[in-house]
């Protein structure tokens, strides 16, 4: 088996052994969405209007919360050094790491979102848009986030730096995704926004692994 395949397998195994690491951001996602109606107006009409935006902001912050640990452990215990020593492509490795990250953060967020939509009185017509935008948008969050995580992997408390680096890049995703859900809710066409999200996903799938591998190499060339 190639090292990339073995790493994907090992990362799933590690996630199964330490469920706290990926359950924590999911709990955060749930809590933000649950607390929102308590703090603002509990009027169902008002909530339905903001539901898409609230769910997307919560999903984005939950992803950010889980990113910090993406490469940190691998840098600290020498796994990264073994990747470089293996001579295998770091591009594939970066894609593999992002894939695992999406499976334990983006995918459960996407699956949980309809429940939160119900809680926040999301209009019936917006559910498809919500799930589709999360399914296309959260992989982008994982891919872009991997760049930031790779850059800050060697920094002691890189969490803040990571947010500063990555949040600006997340904004286009947030705008297109939230607007698709909103437009679906008021009965308008939303395939344009989803198309843009798809384009961003395709672009980041091709380009971010280059940035991730360059950043990881930088971490070790001390």
């Amino acid at each position: 088996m190639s090292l990339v395949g073995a790493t994907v397998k090992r990362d799933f195994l590690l996630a199964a052994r330490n469920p706290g690491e990926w359950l924590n951001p999911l709990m955060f996602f749930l809590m933000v969405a649950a607390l929102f109606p308590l703090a603002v107006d509990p009027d169902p009409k008002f909530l339905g209007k903001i539901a898409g935006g609230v769910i997307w902001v919560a999903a984005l912050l939950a992803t950010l919360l889980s990113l910090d640990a993406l490469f940190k452990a691998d840098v600290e215990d020498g796994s990264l050094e073994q990747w470089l020593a293996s001579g295998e492509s770091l591009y594939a490795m970066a894609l593999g790491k992002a894939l695992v990250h999406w499976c334990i953060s983006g995918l459960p967020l996407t699956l949980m979102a309809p429940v939160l939509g119900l809680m926040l009185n999301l209009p019936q017509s917006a559910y498809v848009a919500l799930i589709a935008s999360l399914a296309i948008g959260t992989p982008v969050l994982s891919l872009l986030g991997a760049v930031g995580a790779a850059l800050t992997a060697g920094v002691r408390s890189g969490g803040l730096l990571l947010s500063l680096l990555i949040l600006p890049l997340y904004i286009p995703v947030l705008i297109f995704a939230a607007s698709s859900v909103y437009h679906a809710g008021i009965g308008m066409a939303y395939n344009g926004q989803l198309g843009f999200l798809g384009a961003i996903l395709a672009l980041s799938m091709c380009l971010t692994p280059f940035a991730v591998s360059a950043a990881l190499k930088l971490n070790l060339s001390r």
Partner: protein
Amino acid sequence: MTADTGQPIIDLKAQALFCERDDRVLFQQLDVQVGNGDLLQLAGPNGAGKTTLLRLLAGLNHDYQGDVFWCGQPMAKAYPDYAAQRLYMGHLSAVKKALTPIENLRWLTAAWCMSDEQLWQALDAVELYGYEETPCQQLSAGQQRRVGLARLALAPQGTGPAPLWILDEPFTALDKAGVAWVEQRLQQHVESGGAVIITSHHALEGIASLRQLDLGAQA
């Protein structure tokens, strides 16, 4: 490519290496050559640049001047081929604490396509028999080192999947029996045509082909 002995050719050559860290020259005009059957020990006081040179020879450190060749080709060009033939063990063991020794070893040897039976035997050789299902966080520091060192046990005959071993302080945290076992493996490896580059403060005696490179004397 194979040599007369049926072993893969090991031909690592470095010329006129120069390296400085923080305006301090670690080594200059340094030539290193390693071929089949060689055991090269990098010696010198702490901070003399042993690990730097080792990482440089392993192709992991690019911050130097000079040339490194693998089988006559510049390292940058030959790297994938070189990486497939050498085993690198840094002082970080790449052992995940939440996983068991066999799961860790499976990842460490992923490129070599070893059967589970071979991996069990390797763990047996480093005396981790009976700890197969124990997460590594419950093992002692020395036992965790042994998980990584089990890779050295994977080729009892011949040079195995990686003819060139590059080891950074492999004796750290090992007990006497462990040290003796590693020494014996080093000897078997060079005798069967492999090569080893090692940093260690440990006196490696009784290995005929041992060469020492003293970085402290160089600077």
